[in-house]
């Protein structure tokens, strides 16, 4: 059986899923001061109905790193960076212990200027004097040649509790993002390690010996052991867990809009041919763009508790929340109250809702029920416009070949899936606003925990083969090896798959087939010098996409 735990902002949800159905579910309030207690409480609830030995796998989604960053509980990080020529260092300087060192590597990976040991020594000394124990080692073009990052790591190793090493975080090119990713990764590292240690101890105490994976923002998981070196990847995994829950609960194979309607906001995601879309570069953390990949979502300030206001005869919904609905003892009329008035909702005390809307309507001369209908319609149109805006933005994303430009896919949603508290109440008006069929999956209220339980490992690699230099590299797996001049694009694709599979096997990740690995990019460019081909520049990028454990899908439907 699989145990999924989602430590969310308000509640911690857990579900226990076997191939024949959901065996247990738990919901406990999240204690922000003690996330560990929330996790233990949820596990305790689950174990009332389930034997700990039956648990084969635990997947955990936690807000720990998210909270650490929001609350600025960040450990000081010594950043040791070589930038070389290019954009002004102001664009990538981060933290109070940022040391920009001499040294430069160019786009082909040639070391153009060495990193002087004396400068490095001085920077390390300065960090030591300041009591800094965790570090980031990042150089420009390190995915092309990590030599200077390795030099920094060698110098730091005796003194460091932890070092985030740029090229191991991602093979993608973006130096300022690599710097910020390394910074946040190190800044949350200690808090994360302490938490994971405590969770693992708690789990063992409950008599569970199953392996544990951690959810990421891209809708997939990583082994807990791996997460100890990339804790930043555990950020913002909650929304992704919910989206993967929808994937588990529904049979989606078309372009679709996914809405998660909460009390104050609605999260919007878009699926292409049934698969969630992931940010190509990464999300921003603390205002800094990073290389942390995440499911693309947009948030709009409209939810069930959004206040309904009449201003100069005009209706306005949200973005403010003043409390729950009137029907639940709140201070002002909300969308939920509007639902009570139109009859689509039966929440709390409907007379309070009716009284509130009578008062609102008095100023307008419109019938209260009509006003409530209009309020809901207006709110749903705003959600629709935000979703259309996201689709337009995604369709405008650049492409780089004539083939893609002329024949590329255009997203065109055919279906809307809705989850969250007010989902059922708003389904009909959403269908009106979108002009599309709307589905509210039966178990959408625990979609987050189901998604957490059933989602699988994701991973991506970028491979570069340069037959002029006779070298192949996969930066985030720290692989560099010799190749022959005859090495081809097909060889490179095969090597990419092989190395990715080997890595997954080393992590004891089971049931990964070769055909689950998707080749996202495979290009071979001739390198010409004086009209002669001197080699090929081959680029392959492979990924294991977010997906749901197929054997358990029927269990949750």
């Amino acid at each position, binding site marked *: 059986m699989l145990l999924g735990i989602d430590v969310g902002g308000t509640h911690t949800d857990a579900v226990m899923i076997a191939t024949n159905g959901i065996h247990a579910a738990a919901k406990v309030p999240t204690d922000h001061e003690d996330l560990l207690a929330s996790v233990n409480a949820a596990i305790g609830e689950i174990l009332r109905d389930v034997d700990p030995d039956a648990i084969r796998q635990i997947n955990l989604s936690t807000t720990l790193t998210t909270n650490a960053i929001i609350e600025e509980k960040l450990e000081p990080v010594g950043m040791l960076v070589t930038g070389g*020529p290019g*954009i*002004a260092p102001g*664009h990538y300087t981060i933290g109070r212990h940022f040391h920009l060192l001499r040294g430069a590597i160019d786009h082909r990976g*040639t070391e153009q200027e060495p990193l002087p040991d004396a400068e490095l020594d001085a920077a390390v000394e300065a960090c030591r004097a300041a009591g800094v124990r965790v570090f980031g080692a990042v150089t420009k073009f390190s995915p092309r040649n990590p030599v200077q990052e390795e030099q920094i790591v060698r110098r730091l190793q005796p003194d460091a509790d932890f070092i985030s090493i740029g090229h191991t975080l991602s093979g993608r090119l*973006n130096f300022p993002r690599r710097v910020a990713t390394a910074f946040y990764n190190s800044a949350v590292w200690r808090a994360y390690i302490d938490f994971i240690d405590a969770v693992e101890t708690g789990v063992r105490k409950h008599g569970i010996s199953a392996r544990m994976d951690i959810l990421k923002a891209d809708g997939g998981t990583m082994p807990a052991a791996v997460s100890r070196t990339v804790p930043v990847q555990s950020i913002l995994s909650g929304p992704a867990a919910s989206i993967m829950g929808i994937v588990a609960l529904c049979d989606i194979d078309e372009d679709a809009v996914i809405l998660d309607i909460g009390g104050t906001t609605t999260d919007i995601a878009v699926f292409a041919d049934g698969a969630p879309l992931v940010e190509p570069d990464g999300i921003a953390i603390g205002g800094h763009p990073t290389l942390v990949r995440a499911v693309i979502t947009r948030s709009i300030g409209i939810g069930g508790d959004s206040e309904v206001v009449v201003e100069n005869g005009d209706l306005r919904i949200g973005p403010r929340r003043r409390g729950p609905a009137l029907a639940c003892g709140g201070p002002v009329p909300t969308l939920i109250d509007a639902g009570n008035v139109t009859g689509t909702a039966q929440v709390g005390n409907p007379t309070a809702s009716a009284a509130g809307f009578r008062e609102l309507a008095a100023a307008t001369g419109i019938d209260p029920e009509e006003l409530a209908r209009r309020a809901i319609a207006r709110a749903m149109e705003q959600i629709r416009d935000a979703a259309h805006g996201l689709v337009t933005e995604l369709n405008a994303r650049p492409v780089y070949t*004539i083939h893609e*430009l*002329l024949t590329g896919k255009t997203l065109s949603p055919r279906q809307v899936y809705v989850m969250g508290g007010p989902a059922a109440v708003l389904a009909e008006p959403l269908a009106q606003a979108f002009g599309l069929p709307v589905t509210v999956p039966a178990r959408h209220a625990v979609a987050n925990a189901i998604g957490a339980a059933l989602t699988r490992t994701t991973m991506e690699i970028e491979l570069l083969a340069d037959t002029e230099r006779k070298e192949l590299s996969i930066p985030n797996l720290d692989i560099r090896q010799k190749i022959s001049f005859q090495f081809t694009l097909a060889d490179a694709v095969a090597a990419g798959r092989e190395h990715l599979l080997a890595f997954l096997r080393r992590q004891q990740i089971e049931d990964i087939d070769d055909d689950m690995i998707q080749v996202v990019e495979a290009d071979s460019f*001739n390198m010409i010098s004086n009209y002669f081909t001197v080699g090929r520049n081959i680029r392959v990028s492979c990924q294991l996409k977010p997906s749901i454990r197929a054997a358990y899908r029927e269990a949750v439907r």
Partner: protein
Amino acid sequence: MSTDHRRLGIIFFPAYDWAIDATHPEREERLLYTQDQLREEGIFDLPGISEHKPEVATAGMIERVHFCIPEVDAVTTPSHLIAAGGAVTAARLVMEKKVDRAFAMVRPPGHHAMKVVHGNRGFCSLNNEAVLVEYLREECGVRRIAIVDTDCHHGDGTQDIYWHDPEVLFISLHQDGRTIFPGTGFVRENGGPNAIGATVNIPLPPQTGDEGFLTVMERVVLPILEAFKPEIVINSAGQDNHYTDPITNMSFSAAGYARLNEMLNPHIAVLEGGYAIQGALPYTNLGICLAMAGHDFSAVREPDYDPERLRQSARVSEYIDTLCAQVMELHRRPPAPAGTPGEFAVRDKSIYYDTDGITEEQTERVLICRACAGLRIIETRASSFPLSICIEIPFAACRSCREAGEKHLREAKNSLRYRLIKLIDRPGKNVESFSDQDVSPRSKYFF
């Protein structure tokens, strides 16, 4: 260093699946290392900088600029329509105020493509800048436009298209035509009889360095722009003046290109040539992007940049001093307009399409007119296509030039001499093409 950031839209389209041929300089990976550099520097994350997809230029956008013989499809591939479309997208973003500045980093280039197109010359089939200029005039109501061509080769195509047009200022800085393709662009080429002074050529000696280029900017380009007062300035941004370029002989650097763009402050830049794809383009393109966006570019330099080694000689500096004085003298005291209004000025041209191996003989007649760019009639015969005639009633043509155009079209049809008769009627927003076999005209309206 300027700190006021501008919103810069970059239309980056490397066309990774297109080449003239496998070892041609204009091949798939020309912008590959530029993309690596721009990504690694995080350019697209800088405040105000955005990336955009190019549109595909429509046949109508091309046909109001060029006489394609026999037709657009015969002389272009989708790559050309996307490069020209990218230039239009740059203009559209600026005119719709979505950005303040736009850079179309597209390929293939276009500045060697002339009014009449039989094929590809100097790697160009369609003139991307001209397609963009006519978009600005036809669809955005812009009237006065300046194109500053900083490619190392003379922009002979752009010069040919705007030779007679007093409202489009064309300034070209390039390596002296006596030492490089296409062998034109001398100081005395300063515009046709209806547009004297609206073409400015600055042929620079080989080994001109940053100092020389920036001197020319300060003493010639900026004062002439100041006097012309364009609504829109376009940089035809070739990067083959770079000291590492394999097919030219100049000593210009990435920092120099950035500084040039800071001084010029163009609304729109369109990539032209530049074939040092590893040693130059990643850095020149980075410098131009930062300069256009008003970001600090002081740390942009090539790995092998050595200002001492690249310093231009005293002889080159002296030569450029004299050259600047000569160009400004011609600008201040242009020759009186030649010819008599109502008569035709005639020029004969031999054109070689190096990529396609086509030779063309042209006789161009332009009606001398003080009120517009003048009716233009081109008789063309190429090794690939028999004698044909092209009639252009220009943008904002005066009434008598319009009437003359209609009369000459009738005469051409009646003469039975031409395999093709082509018409661009800008005031009538109409282009037509008649073949000698056609009984009825194939008419295309671009509006």
